[in-house]
């Protein structure tokens, strides 16, 4: 494990960062879209 540990950690670290980035981006997009849609609902109620 020792000789190759830097390659192994780099590979798993990159995988974790990529999956984490995708998951957070998609979740934040969802929150923002729900908020914007809710604003439209409020505007319609206000009219």
């Amino acid at each position, binding site marked *: 494990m020792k000789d190759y540990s830097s390659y192994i950690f780099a590979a798993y670290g990159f995988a974790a960062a990529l999956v984490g980035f995708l998951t957070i981006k*998609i979740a934040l997009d969802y929150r923002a879209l729900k908020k914007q849609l809710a604003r439209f609902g409020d505007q319609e109620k206000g009219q």
Partner: protein
Amino acid sequence: MFKYANPTHFLALAARLIPWLAGATALTLIAGLYLTFFVAPDDYQQGASVKIMYIHVPSAWLGMMCYMVMTSAALGTLVWRHPLADAAQKAAAPLGAAFTLLCLVTGSLWGKPMWGTWWVWDARLTSVLVLFLIYLGLIGLWRTIEEPSQAARAAAILTLVGVVNIPIIKFSVDWWNTLHQPSSVFRLGGPAISPSMLWPLLVMAVAFTLLFFTLHLMEVRNEILRRRLRRLSILAASAEDPELSAEAAK
């Protein structure tokens, strides 16, 4: 099936499925990582560097599987005009690009200690790089064409043209003399890999597949909401400008 072609029904189904899929992904991923680091032996030639295989191979499979999902969705757009097909296709492209990038980066990190180089213009590596570029092209196409139905048709045609690359990736190691090793799991004579390594690999492949379906479902849901928001924005604007009413009707 067609009941869920209705975006409202689809959103309700997605809300129910996503937590279960996310839970199953987390559990399978934990099991896979445990098997990878504590059960699977080191390779007799490659030593511990073989641990990279457990993310490299599933990400390669997912990169190709994602493209096949997009191809089915492209047929759904062009042939059956399924209302969710282009949303499914658009949502899958960034995920396919991410898995293909992961395959390229982990392959490079595995190649350096084993082959002595980060990259070679070998048929397998080059065809996977082409797949990554096709994904980027598709993402670019969707961003360039403003009208969603036109973008969906153009992307569907490009997807169907690009599918020719999938068998090239799969059989590149058989058709050409490559530095990349031949298939060791999906081959005619059965897997050439020891069961002690095969099982952890299959568990990681299941975990990656579940991860893809979870993220894809979440991204399709976002795409439906994005379209709903676009329609509402145009409707709101058309109340002030009648010329936009026709656009909103699309």
